[in-house]
């Protein structure tokens, strides 16, 4: 990232410490990050916009604060980037679409962008995604596919594919994304980085372009659990203007990261979560469960129906949001999403209401399970990254449509808004693949603690992707 006192791929905490101690200026860090993105990102296509002017201004303000002898915030001088569905003042919020190019530039930053700025982080750009977040592959017809830094012939996952790829490539140590049915956990798994999808209602979504409101979560990516926790801590706080944001005080995760896992009760999700996972996904899960000495199998009831319900509600909510454009300019949608939006617009109310009632039922059953367990463990994706353009993928002898099924293992969890950390498992000679560390509502700190412990044990890690 910079050769002035920081090694390539420095963590957010390394950078913040170096800036705080005066070993490097924030402007130097920002210039190095922007130069690196301009040089190397054309091979990955993770960025749709580089915000150089803003980044240098934010970095200069950090340097000025330090020069005046005033204390610096936790992420001072740390470069980061955001999925292009976050409002960034002065930029058009594309949400991966062609249609949104016609919108006026955002007048103000999204709440989470403002909080990152308050924490001293420096915004260097906006990142590619599936159109309107309706996909798991970031094969965007308008802006091109984002390529996986671990193997550029393969997808980065989606819909926050640019966010995961930018962190895996080492352009930034932190990025923000969104997760409706798996859009943080899937690309984190495929790109081999850490991803946090907090509890539904934990983080304000104000100023982010929604997809399916009753599922939409915002979250973050990082290459270490400590960076992820520090970023999450910076993002927390109530927001009365987001109707889904719970009126809760921030509960810092960073201070407890080193506490270990003593006394925690782990359950390993089986049945559906084993049947819908390839051999490599099961091996990754086993690597994590063996490190945790977690062997207690747990079956969630009616998981397939949970996934089915999530599918129906998502289709209806997403289509409803875009109904005016579906009527007026369907030709301007990405072909990968248009037919699904149109079909979703026709769903009868009886189906969505039944699915929403089932959602209440399922949530109650799963919360009962959390009386006996603190953490549940499951693979994050059925497969590791597939080749760009691959239409079908094999799972236990059956061919399944690739794009529709990358969320098989994430959808039942976000359906009821549980917090999850996706941890990356890297195995020699193989592509990385992620494992979900799932906690009860509001227990993000616990999931992050487990991720940190696994990282210290060497069971999970997220190195910068090597040169390609």
């Amino acid at each position, binding site marked *: 990232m910079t050769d002035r006192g920081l090694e390539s791929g420095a963590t957010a905490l390394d950078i913040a410490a170096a800036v705080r101690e005066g070993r490097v200026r924030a402007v130097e860090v920002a210039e190095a990050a922007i130069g690196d993105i301009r040089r190397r990102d054309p091979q990955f296509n993770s960025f749709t916009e580089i915000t150089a002017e803003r980044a240098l201004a934010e970095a200069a303000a950090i340097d000025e604060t330090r020069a005046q002898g005033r204390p610096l915030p936790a992420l001072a001088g740390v470069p980061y980037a955001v999925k292009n569905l976050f409002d960034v003042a002065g930029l058009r919020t594309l949400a991966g679409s062609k249609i949104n190019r016609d919108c006026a530039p955002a007048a103000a930053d999204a709440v989470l962008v403002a909080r990152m700025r308050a924490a001293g982080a420096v915004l260097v750009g906006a990142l590619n995604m599936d159109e309107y977040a309706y996909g798991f592959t970031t094969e965007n017809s308008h802006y091109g596919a984002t390529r996986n830094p671990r193997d550029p012939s393969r997808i980065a996952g989606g819909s926050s594919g640019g966010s995961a790829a930018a962190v895996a490539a080492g352009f930034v140590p932190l990025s923000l994304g969104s997760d409706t049915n798996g859009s943080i956990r899937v690309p984190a798994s495929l790109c081999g980085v850490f991803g946090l999808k907090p509890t*539904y209602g934990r983080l304000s979504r104000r100023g982010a372009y929604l997809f399916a409101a009753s599922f939409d979560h915002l979250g973050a990516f990082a290459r270490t659990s400590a960076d992820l926790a520090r970023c999450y801590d910076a993002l927390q706080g109530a927001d009365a203007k987001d109707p889904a944001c719970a009126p809760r005080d921030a509960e810092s995760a960073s201070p407890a990261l080193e506490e270990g896992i003593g006394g925690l009760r782990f359950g390993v999700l089986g049945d559906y979560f084993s049947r819908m996972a390839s051999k490599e996904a099961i091996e990754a899960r086993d690597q994590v469960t063996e490190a945790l000495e977690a062997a207690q199998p747990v079956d969630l009831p009616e998981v397939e129906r949970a996934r089915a319900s999530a599918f129906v509600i998502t289709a209806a909510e997403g289509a409803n949001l875009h109904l005016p454009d579906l009527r007026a300019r*369907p030709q301007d949608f990405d072909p990968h999403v248009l037919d699904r939006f149109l079909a979703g617009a026709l769903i009868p109310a009886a189906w969505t209401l039944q699915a929403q009632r089932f959602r209440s039922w399922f*949530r109650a059953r799963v919360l009962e399970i959390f009386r006996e367990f603190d953490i549940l463990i499951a693979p994050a994706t059925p497969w590791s990254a597939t080749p760009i353009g691959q239409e079908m993928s094999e799972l236990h002898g059956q061919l399944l449509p690739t794009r529709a099924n990358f969320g098989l293992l994430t959808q039942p969890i976000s359906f009821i808004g549980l917090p999850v950390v996706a941890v990356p498992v890297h195995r020699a000679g193989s592509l990385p693949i992620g494992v979900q560390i799932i906690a009860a509502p509001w227990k993000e700190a616990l999931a992050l603690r487990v991720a940190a412990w696994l990282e210290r044990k060497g069971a999970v890690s997220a190195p910068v992707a090597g040169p390609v």
Partner: protein
Amino acid sequence: MKPEDCAAYVDAAAALAGLDLRGPRREAVVVQFSRIAAIAEFVMQHELPADVEPATVMRHD
């Protein structure tokens, strides 16, 4: 919903919703809707107690 019913439903509902499905797009939407219908049927088969209300916003407080 049978496949032929899906096609008829898509035509009628699209007209009500003001969506233009002329040309090859209609067939693609019928395929997608048939898939949703099959998935929704699985959801509808689950009997729920009468006191289970829809989870319109998944608040945990």
